[in-house]
């Protein structure tokens, strides 16, 4: 039996009518829990679509507050939310969209000390962070806990998406073994980002979550999808597991969580 009210059946009717989803798939969405790391450029569309889709419990972790420079792309926040913690602004919007969902709010930074127990509480993790230290931390933790992870990144006119099942499919380090050398990769604050690119990539991340939960289709496992908005092209690269991967390869050298250090984190807060 489905645990969906009449109002929910009506609300989700365009899902339920999809034979691949149906009542069974919608119930899976209601029973699912997803942790979204970051409530910025990527987190905004991810949180909006997961809320609207009826993911039963959504966690959002972010330590930043809404800044006017965020509003060009972080569409879950409004002008009146400036200076509010992003988690509170996001949570209010999510509950306005869908009162049937549960939202867990973590107004803190994700660290190697809190990540493992936190991701344990969720079925899937979505990466919407703005920095490489946290990106690698999330990847490594999801490999160690064998969690599903939907990776996403944006910069200027480009985006990247990759779905990962920790320990089972290629991870972020299988492709990007180590963070780039200091000073080589600009942040969005330094290099800019076309706001709608965040929408494209975040919406694809949300799509991957819905597919993984419902079992519909083929997730972007062992594949990397790059998006070039200037040319409006997607480029898919096969990315099988790398036996030399330092965290999920045959002889892993990373067996404990590591946190790469920042040198200028205060210069570019919340820039994803």
């Amino acid at each position, binding site marked *: 039996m489905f645990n969906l009210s009449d109002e929910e059946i009506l609300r989700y009717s365009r899902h339920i009518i999809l034979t691949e989803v149906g009542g069974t798939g919608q119930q899976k969405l209601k029973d699912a829990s997803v942790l979204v790391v970051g409530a910025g450029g990527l987190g905004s569309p991810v949180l909006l679509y997961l809320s609207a889709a009826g993911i039963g419990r959504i966690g959002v972790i972010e330590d930043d507050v809404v800044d006017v420079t965020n509003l060009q792309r972080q569409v879950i926040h409004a002008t009146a939310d400036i200076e509010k913690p992003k988690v509170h602004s996001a949570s209010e919007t999510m509950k306005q969209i869908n009162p049937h969902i549960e939202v867990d709010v973590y107004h803190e930074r994700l660290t190697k000390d809190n990540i493992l127990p936190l991701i344990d509480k969720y079925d899937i993790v979505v990466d919407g962070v703005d920095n*490489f230290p946290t990106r690698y931390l999330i990847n490594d933790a999801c490999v160690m806990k064998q969690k599903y992870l939907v990776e996403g990144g944006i910069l200027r006119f*480009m985006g990247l998406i990759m779905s990962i099942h920790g320990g089972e499919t290629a991870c972020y380090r299988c*492709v990007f073994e180590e963070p780039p050398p200091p000073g080589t990769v600009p942040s969005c604050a330094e290099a800019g980002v076309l706001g709608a690119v965040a929408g494209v990539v975040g919406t694809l991340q949300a799509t991957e979550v819905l597919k993984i939960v419902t079992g519909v289709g083929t997730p972007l496992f062992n594949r990397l999808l790059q998006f070039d908005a200037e040319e409006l092209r997607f480029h898919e690269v096969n990315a099988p597991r790398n036996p030399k991967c330092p965290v999920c390869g045959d002889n892993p050298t990373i067996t404990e969580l590591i946190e790469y250090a*920042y040198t*200028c984190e205060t210069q570019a807060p919340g820039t*994803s």
Partner: protein
Amino acid sequence: MLSLKNDGACHGIDCLQLVVQGRPLEYHGARDVRSLLESQGEKAAYANVRINGNVLNRRDFENIPIKEGDQIDFLYFMGGGSCLI
């Protein structure tokens, strides 16, 4: 963007036929990975490179030759700042 000449005269001496980002490319530059990358302008600064399925070590870009028919993918680092130490 990459220099692309569609004059129908891609000869091995001064031109290589490559497949870059899944698309055919006639490349006229110097035959090492760094030069190919630098023909991408500023994007070169934040790309990893994969040739025929193998991800290269960034430190080797200058020493790795490119040759006729190579399939080359640029894998861009995205979603971070330049703030690592």
